[in-house]
């Protein structure tokens, strides 16, 4: 097991050498004002059987979880995903079942009662008999198969994205709304590192700490045969970080420590870092260091924010608005030969969807009125008619290029104080009945970023803080630089009220029975009324030809 603890201090943060003390057997930090990333790498053979079985069936498994609390990303950890749990999975054999992973996910997610959770499984659609009332679990099935070929074919992109760009993306993708990773932490504590191990208690504390993390990544691939768990805290707890790291008991284990600051590199695609490094129990003192590396994820030099909202009333066709101050929309400091475009990547749960034909339009009037440039890629559930309970996949992903204000507007002497707003028309699926007549759809804020693509097609060099498999990164060329805008809001999940059929249990006024019998009685009465009228006609004049009028069959 290897641990890497990285503290990133802002340029203006104070540091006193007494705050980080290295001894022969431990390292302690005190009141450190910094962002922190903990990365733990575990070999496959160190894992419990149940978990190992899942990984052994995987070619690649990447979990990305982000908190719905707003946080300031810090270089080099400036990449973002929408709040919730994202799973990118490639099974070892393309036709092998993902059932083992799904069982695991069910434990990790532990869906609440009534949560709009699409179970990741191959089960048939199943309904609890107590259906529209409380205690319902939504057991549907299957992860999104975002087949690169289909994704390209369905996206109506001109020019089409090159399929080689998808080489690094996983074949199966899954997302679920997950405000807290409590059950993941519990799973790690009870199954992965139980108390019987020597380092059990310490791992418990480490796992508990994940509860306050802003984002958590779990990675596995069959080449390294190692599992990596990373937690990121972008701001310190009150009073700063105070912690102690003991030299590991086993010689095979290792703790690396870094206290670093990040700055812009010499080249626009580089990040320069400097500070102190040490391997606990191995190094005698903290070693000063300075290094720089190319990074696909770059910080924006000027603060750039966006907010997401749905203008009320949302009805059944809510429109997502992404608003940015115009000052947020200056071209990022990318190399001058790179082409930069503003993008948004939507992660829509199955309760809400876009109409691919509406959004893939080339009609400039529609695009301009919404401040969109084009739909660049889409994957997942595209059905325009199905109710949510029929939909088996978790939802869909949309990559849209957003328009930016024209340069001329920037040149005006007085800056325009109004926001620049892009709008995306969406639609709600029918949801099952509820007692109140309403249900809530949880829609994570999309990520908004600049993608600056250089002509050069060489691979981005690896760096110790690189982050891939975010869903949207694989839709761009390997040398693309990403500059994230900062979501500005208390909660990065929108709740949209969905009107549904109101049904009450017990002796309530709104009962399914009334609808059933009401419809049946009214239809039957209507049917009998028409039959009665027909009987009257048949009684008085039979079913044959009318012979009352003499003109019949007379010829002119």
């Amino acid at each position, binding site marked *: 097991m290897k641990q890497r603890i990285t503290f990133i201090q802002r340029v203006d943060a104070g540091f006193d050498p007494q705050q980080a003390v290295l001894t022969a057997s431990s390292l302690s930090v005190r009141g450190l004002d910094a962002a922190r990333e903990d990365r733990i790498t575990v070999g496959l053979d160190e894992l419990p059987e149940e978990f190992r079985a899942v990984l052994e069936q995987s070619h690649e498994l990447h979990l990305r979880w982000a908190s719905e609390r707003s946080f300031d990303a810090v270089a080099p950890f400036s990449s973002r995903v929408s709040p919730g749990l994202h799973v990118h999975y490639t099974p070892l054999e393309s036709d092998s079942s993902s059932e083992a992973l799904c069982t695991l996910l069910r434990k990790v997610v532990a869906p609440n009662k009534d949560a709009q959770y699409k179970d990741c499984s191959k089960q048939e659609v199943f309904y609890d008999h107590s259906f*529209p009332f409380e205690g319902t679990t939504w057991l549907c099935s299957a992860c999104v198969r975002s087949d690169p070929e289909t994704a390209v074919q369905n996206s109506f992109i001109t020019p089409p994205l090159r399929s080689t760009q998808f080489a690094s993306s996983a074949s199966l993708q899954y997302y679920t709304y997950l405000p807290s990773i409590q059950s993941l932490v519990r799973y790690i504590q009870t199954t992965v590192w139980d108390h019987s191990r020597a380092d059990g208690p310490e791992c418990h504390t480490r796992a508990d700490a994940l509860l306050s993390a802003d984002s958590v990544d779990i990675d596995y691939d069959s080449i390294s045969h190692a599992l990596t768990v990373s937690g990121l805290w972008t701001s310190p707890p009150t009073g700063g970080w105070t912690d102690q790291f003991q030299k590991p008991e086993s010689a095979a284990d290792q703790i690396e420590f870094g206290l670093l600051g990040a700055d812009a590199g010499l080249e626009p695609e580089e990040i320069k870092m400097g500070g102190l490094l040490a391997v606990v129990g191995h190094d005698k003192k903290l070693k000063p260091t300075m290094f720089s590396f190319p990074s696909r994820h770059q910080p924006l030099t000027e603060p750039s924010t966006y907010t997401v909202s749905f203008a009320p009333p949302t009805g059944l066709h809510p429109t997502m608005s992404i608003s940015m101050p115009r000052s947020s929309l200056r071209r990022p400091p990318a190399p001058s030969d790179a082409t930069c475009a503003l993008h948004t990547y939507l992660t829509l749960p199955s309760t809400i969807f876009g109409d691919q034909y509406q959004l893939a339009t080339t009609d400039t009037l529609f695009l301009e009125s919404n401040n969109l440039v084009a739909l660049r890629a889409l994957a997942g559930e595209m059905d325009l008619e199905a109710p949510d309970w029929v939909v088996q996949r978790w939802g869909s992903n949309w990559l849209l290029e957003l328009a930016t204000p024209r340069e001329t507007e920037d040149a005006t002497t007085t800056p325009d104080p109004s926001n620049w707003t892009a709008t995306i028309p969406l639609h709600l699926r029918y949801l099952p009945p509820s007692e109140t007549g309403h249900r809530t759809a949880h829609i994570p804020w999309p990520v908004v970023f600049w993608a600056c693509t250089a002509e050069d097609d060489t691979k981005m060099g690896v760096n110790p803080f690189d982050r891939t498999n975010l869903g949207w990164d694989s839709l761009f060329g390997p040398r693309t630089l990403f500059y994230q805008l900062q979501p500005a809001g208390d909660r990065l999940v929108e709740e949209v009220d969905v009107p549904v059929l109101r049904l009450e249990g017990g002796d309530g006024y709104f009962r399914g029975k009334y609808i059933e019998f009401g419809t049946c009685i009214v239809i039957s009465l209507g049917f009998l009324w028409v039959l009665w009228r027909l009987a009257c006609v048949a009684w008085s004049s039979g079913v044959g030809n009318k012979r009352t009028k003499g003109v019949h069959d007379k010829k002119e």
Partner: protein
Amino acid sequence: MTLFDSPARVFLAAAALRLVLLVYGGWQDAHSAVKYTDIDYMVFTDAARYVAKGESPYARDTYRYTPLLAWMLVPTAWEGAAPWSTLSFAFGKVLFALSDVLAGWLVVQLLVRCYRFPVERALRYVAAVWLWNPMVANISTRGSSEGLLGVLVAALLWATLTKKPILAGLILGLAVHFKIYPFIYGVSILWWWDAERDGSAMVGSGLLSKALGFVTPSRVKFTVAALASFVALNLVMYLQYGQPFLHHTFFHHLTRIDHRHNFSPYSTLLYLSAAGGAETRFEALAFLPQLILVVVALPLVLAKKSLATAMLAQTFTFVTFNKVCTSQYFLWYLILLPFYLPSSSLIRKPALGISAAILWIAGQALWLHQGYNLEFLGLSSFVPGLFLAGLFFFAVNVWILGIVVRDGGDGGEITVAEK
């Protein structure tokens, strides 16, 4: 009024109305993000583009029609410079609008030749109900294919009343291939075309001779022609496009769960049961009242008395008792209204006619108000709002249907066989 003296003027005005709407539609599409063109037309033209490239029209999601439609619209896929592309895009709309006018012309012909209407009177009714009806012109110029159904039904009635059994059969086969529901007319026409109308010899009164007498040459020709054209069209389409053709053109309509709110009285029940909340399965029997009336009772009692009124009553019943109903379905019976209205008690007794119109509109308004609350304001108006509005609208329709049935029994049709 001199306007109605001249068929040319009436038809020119109808064509002018459509031309104005076409030009206006083109202008709105080019200048507004809110399009005049119907979303369905985009589906048709996308499908036509696939067909033009030699691919299946079913490559377009939600294309649920015969490939014939996509074939007919292939010119819309022709690319060209600016004015030409606009014109070629409008090809389908022009086709639908021309079908409208042609349908109106056929109805006028029938009213004059078979119903002995003075030309002016025929023009007056057809103009009011169909040719000058802004709703009809709007639907076809927005690019909805319902206008094609209008011309097929009008042609079917024309071929039947002018005693052309083979032609009538071929048209029926085509119409059913296009949109399943016209099969209901087959029953009425078969029952109507008895020995007396056929002009063949009357037979004796024995059971066997009666049974044999039912088999008139016209009935045989009509049935064989209808089956032949229906089977041939489906065979060609199946060979060309395989299973997706059968699935999207036919099976989809039989297996869909119409859980979304619509005018049908079943709509709330279908939502409830699709979501698994219903204890009984009444909706599984919904086809019974609908088909008993449409396929058995209405043709049997009314077809021989007044074929057009029987067909109107069938369509009206089919739409009223259907599990799904949207406003385009109302167009299905509009084309048959000019045959029924002139002699109906709705016209003879203005109070009755006005009450029927007011109640029908009130039913629509109530439903649309609830629908607006749900769709745009997000209010949970499924119960009681939409549920009761749907049932009220159903009740109004059934009441009007009762009037149509009574009129069909005693008012009516005076047809003159063509020599």
